[in-house]
């Protein structure tokens, strides 16, 4: 029998606010344990939460970018459970009335588009972190993360393969980062993903029994874990067994999922409305205000790049991996009007150097305008493409303007026919044997002559002109 996977993903994204969701503590990562805490986020008796409005702003932004309906009145709830890194004994979250529902994102799959539904987006506070010391019978709790704002984005069970799952995740990740509301760092836990996965016979409507997957800390983990889990469940079903509904942890070193130990199972969270917080009323004005701050999103940007700059879709994907890179590219094009050439330079030399230097595009020593100027020098014949590489190196190292480098180092291309003819005559005279062979039909030697001309002109000869003149001379003599 052929089985079809049914996958739904739950993403937790940490919002990039300066302060926590219900108090004024900093959200900065990596500070000394418990240094970013106050009576509110450590849940002392008598304290009350006060909502950080930025959290709602950011969530509305994400909701609009993913085509969700915004619930004009949405409420807070308490999720009750005991854990040492949960200081109040409950997490403040949204339950019955989340801020946003019924959205979608389009994911590019093998040239086509697949639409994946978003069930809901809600806001909540993060818990702290427990640190267990293996060498002594003690655990430590760091509450710096307690109260850091999160949004949870729950997908519909629309995903049918590991590739679709990862495609969907990349898309969410990209949107969050583009919107500037999440740094997307998976290692630091700013972007986390859990999966619900079940199999059903192809054509069947009813869902099978699902497993919940946790502990996937990169896109690659998600890909491998989903692939593994599909195979595992398929094997169980094919051998007549039954999948157990349980939470399983991905073990990347072994490449398998393990069931999580029993104690975490069967929680009754006793959700109820949080009486300490009033409901959030979202007005039309508020939504309009946020709408104005939403930039063009990657998918739209890609389509526009392909259509207006006439560059290959592959280029468009690379150039839109970040908002800043896309801006850099567009600034370059604006100043040189050669979209494809600009794309080659940005994707090749600029990204290559950035990677080598471990820098972001914001840290590029060559500005978009300088790069455009350099491209213009190639286009107007001042320098050859080959010399341009040399100029670019220098620009990268010194930050100097290309024109200045060309002048200083005397790199202006030789377009003067007289001096080029001299150089060619010189080459032909010193290589009579090769000239003879060429005339016998060994046309491959043409490249050799070009190379020799370039050598004596130290690369400054205009290659097109050299070709023309060389051909003429060789056929004449």
């Amino acid at each position: 029998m052929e089985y079809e996977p049914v996958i739904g993903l739950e993403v937790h994204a940490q919002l990039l606010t300066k302060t926590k969701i219900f108090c004024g503590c900093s959200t900065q990562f990596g500070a000394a344990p418990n240094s970013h805490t106050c009576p509110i986020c450590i849940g002392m008796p008598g304290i009350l939460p006060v909502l950080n409005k930025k959290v709602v702003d950011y969530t509305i932004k994400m909701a609009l970018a993913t085509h969700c309906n915004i619930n004009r009145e949405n409420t807070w709830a308490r999720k009750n459970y005991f854990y040492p890194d949960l200081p109040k004994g409950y997490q403040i979250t949204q339950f019955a009335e989340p801020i946003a529902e019924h959205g979608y994102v389009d994911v590019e799959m093998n040239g086509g588009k697949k639409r994946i539904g978003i069930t809901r987006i809600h806001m909540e506070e993060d818990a702290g972190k427990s640190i267990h010391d293996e060498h002594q019978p003690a655990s430590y709790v760091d509450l710096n993360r307690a109260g850091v704002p999160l949004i949870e984005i729950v997908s519909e069970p629309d995903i049918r393969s590991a590739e679709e799952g990862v495609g969907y995740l990349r898309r969410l990740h990209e949107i969050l980062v583009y919107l500037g509301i999440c740094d997307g760092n998976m290692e630091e836990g700013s972007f986390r993903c859990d999966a619900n996965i079940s199999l059903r016979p192809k054509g069947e409507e009813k869902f099978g029994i699902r497993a919940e997957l946790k502990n996937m800390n990169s896109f690659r983990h998600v890909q491998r874990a989903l692939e593994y889990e599909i195979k595992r469940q398929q094997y169980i079903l094919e051998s007549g067994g039954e999948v157990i509904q349980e939470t399983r942890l991905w073990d990347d070193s072994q490449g398998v999922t393990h069931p999580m130990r029993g104690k975490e199972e069967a929680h009754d969270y006793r959700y109820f409305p949080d009486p300490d917080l009033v409901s959030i009323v979202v007005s039309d004005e508020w939504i309009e205000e946020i709408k104005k701050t939403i930039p063009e999103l990657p998918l739209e940007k890609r389509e526009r790049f392909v259509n207006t700059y006439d560059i290959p879709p592959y280029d468009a994907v690379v150039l839109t991996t970040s908002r800043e890179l896309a801006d850099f590219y567009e600034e370059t094009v604006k100043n040189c009007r050669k979209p494809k050439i600009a794309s080659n330079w940005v994707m090749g030399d600029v990204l290559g150097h950035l990677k080598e230097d471990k820098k972001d595009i914001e840290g590029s020593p060559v500005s978009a305008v300088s790069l455009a100027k350099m491209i213009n020098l190639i286009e107007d014949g001042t320098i050859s493409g080959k010399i341009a590489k040399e100029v670019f190196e220098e620009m990268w190292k010194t930050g100097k303007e290309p024109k200045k480098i060309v002048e200083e180092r005397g790199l202006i291309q030789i377009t003067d026919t007289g001096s080029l003819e001299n150089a060619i005559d010189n080459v032909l005279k010193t290589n009579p044997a090769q000239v003879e062979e060429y005339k016998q039909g060994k046309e491959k030697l043409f490249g050799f002559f070009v190379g020799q001309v370039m050598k004596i002109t130290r690369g400054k000869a205009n290659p097109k002109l050299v070709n023309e003149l060389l051909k003429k001379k060789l056929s004449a003599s």
Partner: protein
Amino acid sequence: MELNQLTIHELQKKLKNSETTSVEITEAVFKRIEAVDDKIHSFVTLMKDEAFEEAREADKEIQRGNGGPLTGIPIALKDIMCTKGTRTTCGSHILENFIPPYDSTVVKRLRDAGAVFIGKTNMDEFAMGSSTETSYFGVTKNPWDLEKIPGGSSGGSAAAVAADQCIASLGSDTGGSIRQPAALCGIVGMKPTYGRVSRFGLVAFASSLDQIGPFTKDVEDCAIMLNAIAGYDPNDSTSVHADIPDYTEYVSKSIEGWTVGIPKEYFIEGIDPEVLSAVEAAIKEVEHMGAQCKEISLPHSEYCVAIYYVIAPSEASSNLARYDGVRYGFRSDAGRDLMDMYKMSRSAGFGDEVKRRIMIGTHALSSGYYDAYYKKASQVRTLLRKDFDEAFRTCDAILTPSTPTPAFNIGEKMDDPLQMYLCDVFTISCNLAGIPGISVPCGYTEAGLPIGVQFLTGHFEEGKLIQIASAYEKNATLERRRATI
């Protein structure tokens, strides 16, 4: 009369005219505490050193001509309000050594107003009780009769005012915890509208019901205290932006032409005959003052106790989850692992009544029961609120007994939680509806125990509440007594 027996407004005049000093008043208060607190046990923690320091500071302010209505006045605080640097126990073993690093908003406001804090008063553990018998720190006794309970949960704050161990005090009221002990101790106690006074720094029992309010010797003092503590607080999202009038302006105003509703559901069988006749006399007095009293109906009243004992324990079960022995408070050393540590710390740290309510609340919120209990209770709560909205469309105020009986014997109801819960049958509705209420003395039983009458008004109408309570207090022909101990 001794200084500690006077009211805020009487002392204020004496301070202004330099007839006395805050230090002298504070001395009188502590002399009284030292003389009688062994017997009454109003206090859990005394703040003597700080009090005299504040009193000296207040005297300087008064000399400079800067004093306000509360400058230099000794005030006691229910031990549920966080006081920076002074332990705040909530009457519980689990918080026996908890010293908050912050002041609650009300404490800050009173501090800014120049009040002198003399100590933290005893209470039912986590405010769960109606007799101040469930405190980990022992029982508080009624200054009118030491065999009787003072009411609760703010029994210590009520007894301290009644026994002149302070000039005024603050309590908190979740289902009657200010008005019921005020009635049983023969003083004035008010629960303001939900959202009128900040809850920041008030250790939460049931967050949608809790509200802080004053205990005073008369209604004018109540207005003075309310002026100091009322108002929006950015630290409490449920506190309300609304103009705060000067409540003292409502003192001694006439209620001629008012309509006062008498809800028939509050005159039920089982109400003590002496209480009933005192309250009926109060109705006549109010009519004498030119108001028209008419019978009204609040049809959902019979469900009040049931709704309350679903909603309050549900919220409490969640609010009290933080007392797990991990970060502060009592931790049992006996646990073998984390789960054990939780269980043993909470089993040993909480008293029986608190555990009973945590269990009720946990059950009511459990999946499969939520709809039948918590959700249903919330729906009926909305209906109850509508009852009051409807009533206040035609009434300026509502008059009821404050309690069904006068103070009862210590130990009498400790083994019968249901009987204990019925002590609040007349006060709970006010919390569920979020409206303000006040209890004012309206007579005595033959045995000499005080009886209280309760007035209720619409949301944020504390002004009218002061007006009718003050009119009644000034004009009723009532014998005035003092607790003698």
